[in-house]
């Protein structure tokens, strides 16, 4: 049952593949962004998991504790979350502009309109 002990990594794998699948399979631009967010979230969970030490506490000096959880990946992931927020905002803003220009968010319909123009 050793593999069960690594369950958080399994969660990461499942989330990552779910997100990735949604990005590839969905034709709707908003759904693609949702998929992208799930995909990125899996990476955040991955970083936070790798920092955790069994029995480790917060990295604050307290009498009697010797094992600390590594705070650095948490800080890294804070940055990555900010990046992800900016990306989501950018993606949604583009989706709004696409909707204004084409009246649709479905990739097939947009491509069909472009082919009519050409």
């Amino acid at each position, binding site marked *: 049952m050793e593999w069960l002990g690594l369950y958080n990594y399994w969660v990461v794998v499942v989330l990552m593949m779910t997100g990735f699948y949604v990005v590839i399979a969905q034709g709707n631009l908003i759904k693609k962004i949702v998929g992208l967010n799930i995909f990125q979230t899996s990476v955040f969970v991955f970083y936070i998991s790798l920092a955790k030490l069994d029995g480790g506490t917060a990295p604050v000096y307290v009498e009697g504790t010797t094992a600390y959880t590594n705070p650095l990946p948490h800080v890294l992931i804070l940055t990555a979350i900010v990046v992800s927020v900016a*990306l989501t905002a950018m993606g949604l803003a583009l989706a709004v502009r696409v909707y204004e220009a084409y009246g649709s968010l479905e990739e097939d319909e947009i491509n069909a309109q472009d082919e009519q123009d050409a």
Partner: protein
Amino acid sequence: MIEHHLPALQVLLPLFAAPLLMFLVRWPTLAWAVTTAVCWAALLVSALLLEAVWAGGPISYAHGGWEPPYGIEYRVDTVNAFVLLIISGISAIVMPFARDSVEQEVPRDRIAWFYTAFLLANAGLLGIAITGDAFNIFVFFEISAIASYALIAMGRDRRALLASFTYLIMGTIGTTFLLIGIGFLYMMTGTLNLADLAERLPAVHDTSTIRAAFAFIAVGVSLKLALFPLHLWLPNAYTYAPSMVTVFLAATATKVAIYVLLRFFYSVFGVEFSFGVLPMGYVLMPLALLGILIPSIVATFQADVKRMLAYSSVAQVGYIILGFSFASTLGLMAAMLHLFNHAITKAALFMALGAIVYRIGSPRIDAMAGIARDMPWTMAAFVVGGLSLIGVPLTAGFITKWHLLLAALEAGLWPIAVFLLATSLIALIYIGRVVEAAYFRERPAGAVPVREAHPALLLPTWALALASVVFGIHTALPIGAAARAAELLLGGYP
């Protein structure tokens, strides 16, 4: 005192100037002037850095006084000083061209925002090149990428929006893969500093974690550099972006991603691991060859010259990766040379095309029929750039092809030498189609007579076109720099 802070200034100049431009929304010309000043200052910094590195060896800059490997380190050596010079040089030269081109293509009230995004993209690319910290590379990748998405979406055609969206999706997957790879590396070594990683990796080389890290980084960065077949975002993004953005991104964005791949393969993982333990040569070389052949053929069928040049860019990435995949001094020299030569050549071509689009309003090949009579100087610059792209002797393109040939022969792969000659002929065909239309066909009936592009558009175009000839004849500087860079990359971290 100020010399000591040059590495920080390189990135901070454009990064801090970008938000200031938001106050100049009502004065677009002033926003342009500030951007130009910043770009030329950044070029000066790059030149000083290259000079310092050339004479005194690598420079390490500890941000906030936190000593590496604990703090974030900026590290400049011959390889990235060269890349920095390419980025800041292209952005400085494109600025005089940008003023009129952007005024025509971007609504007046968005021009200042446009330059804000441009400076951010510039800062991001410079940051990727200069930093010595793996996580920092990810952050700068995203800074430059998000700004590029905004820049591309400012194209006049509504298809620019979807092109930008596709780039956003694929680019984000690429950078997230890079992030996963960096996570694996950190997991095994506990460090993010590239030089420190290079030192600690050999002890844990033989683990599946490190192999997974390698795979994620290789695929992620390959997406960003548009390695065939991961190039699908590129043609649309380059075709529908404003002319000035295409010039800038085509010359710099993929080059910086290639630099990151070089850095990871050669300096961090080491050449023995990348090309010995893992057979990357056998993976990259076929992809590079297919990546030269297929996009080149596709380029010959394009009716839109901008899209044609975009496909040609994918092919040129193939040439660089080909040199890269030999894992020899000559091959690396060819890759570094082509990084430089292709940046100036392709920028000259896209600028000449931008000047034509400025006058006739369309990048389509049939709209360009007979244009050489009305715009002789612009078309002449296009021809010079085209010759360099084909690799005709006495142009910069020839120097790269020559080194690639030597590297192929040195590796005993003479079919590749033949292949290189054949693909140069394909380039001759697609450049030839444009030249044929512009010089030997009549202007389409009812076409509005056009004038020669004015000097602000013409001078930067000719500066780069001439540079591609000068560096084809006077080869000491690029070859010297490339030789040093190749030596450095093969030697791991000094």
